[in-house]
């Protein structure tokens, strides 16, 4: 599936909650819990992305020209967001990753988590994902 197709899938998945933000967050938290955990050996200092509050570990790899990420975070809501991002990006080409606008975050009503002033460092993570993708594909 293309990035856009996965984004649409996620949008539909969240649409059923309507205005029920609690349902939405419950789902996000579940996604966080189910995120395939990064290998302990990849939880290195270099792989850490510091927000002011929650931390994210990100490992990136390339296989047959496609990029794959594993990640973890110490905060579960952040982890849910990370899970969404990985779902969208995994197995895509560097070019598509770099060009992705990730508008689904806005559409599913979680926009504030990607705000530049957010204390969880998610935006830095997205930028890091894009950077890694470029590096790996060169």
């Amino acid at each position: 599936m293309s990035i856009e197709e996965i984004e649409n899938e996620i949008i539909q998945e969240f649409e059923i909650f309507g205005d029920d933000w609690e349902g939405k967050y419950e789902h996000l938290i579940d996604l966080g819990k189910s995120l395939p955990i990064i290998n302990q050996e990849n939880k290195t200092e270099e792989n850490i992305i510091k927000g002011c509050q929650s931390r994210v570990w990100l490992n990136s790899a390339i296989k047959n020209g496609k990029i794959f990420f594993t990640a973890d975070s110490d905060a579960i809501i952040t982890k849910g967001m990370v899970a969404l991002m990985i779902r969208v990006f995994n197995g895509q080409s560097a070019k598509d990753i770099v060009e992705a606008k990730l508008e689904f975050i806005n559409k599913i009503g979680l926009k504030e988590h990607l705000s530049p002033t957010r204390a969880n460092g998610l935006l830095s993570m997205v930028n890091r994902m894009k950077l890694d993708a470029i590096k790996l594909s060169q």
Partner: protein
Amino acid sequence: MIDSKHIREQFPILNKRINNNSLVYFDNGATTQKPKVVIDSVVKYYSEQNANIHRGVHTLSREATELFESARQTVSSFINSKTEEIIFTSGTTDSINIVANGLDIPKGSEIIVSQMEHHSNILPWQLWCERNNGKLKVIPINRDGTLQIKKLESLITHNTAVVALTHVSNTLGVINPVNEIIQKVKAIDQRILVLIDGAQSVPHMSIDVKNMDCDFFVFSGHKMYAPTGCGVLYVKKGLMDQLKLSKTGGGTIKTVSFERTEYVNGPLRFEAGTPNIEAVVGLAKACEFMNSIGVNNISEHEHSLLVYAQNELRAIEGVEIYADHSNKAAVISFNVKGQHPFDVGTLLDKYGVAIRTDHHCTQPLMNYYGIQGTIRASFAIYNVKEEIDIFIEALKKGIKLLS
């Protein structure tokens, strides 16, 4: 008894809705909201009184100067000091830096701070030590958040130049017995200078710097109902003229030539450049606002909120309150077992409850407890029991969502 309804009506922001809920603002340790009298004083200042001060012959300038200087009087009596002991700064952080940069103490001196200090009362001293081969020493604390005062005495040597201590911990709420500590320090060595960081005490309790007998006392306007961008540096009479300047410029001088400058004495020497006139005027109004309620009534009301909230929190499984049973101002830091403070804070926000969840600029204190951060609720005069109920309800729901 205070009239909460009447007080709440004076804070326009309390009508704000967050994610379809009423705002419950429990982040007062970070900054308080502003009452209408303060906001109105700002509007009045810019609509009728604004001019630069201290040198103008025209009416506006003269009146603005009088406003500014009478604010100095108001603020000084608020903490029982003399008018000429009050320097207006841009905030607590600024005040501490002015002292740390200005002290005429020998290289290699030792500075004592405590484990619970705000970064703003650590970093200026750390920088001084780095640049002057000084030594930063730390008063340890107990798990209940109290200072190990006995240890302080053993930290003092003949090289000790400064003890810089917070009056109330911004993270734990613990009230340090500063009067007693200052007495002890001065009894050991009269020359040791004591700075008290009152950023978290002035908003909550009546302050008497004369009785306290500290050498420096610092606090911020924005944490006590005043506008942002102004603070106070109290300097005990006789010490001010010995402070070296770290900031200089217009308004501080008698005569200037390229060869030699003659500075004025007193507070103006430290108030280089156009001050934050508006905020200083607003700060005086904020003092009057607090006086109109009665600072002791504020303490009492906030204390009852503290007691109530702590009781409610204790009843929730997995909640650990830091410094739970110590003598505290209206600040509660806690964690929920197995949950990241950030997650809890994010969900509380969804329910309209604004609390802070991080290291609260006290990383060394976090390291002591071996944690990343805490969830902190801090109260102000406009908070009420009903808001604590909302907060507790939201917290329970949040924990359930997260589990």
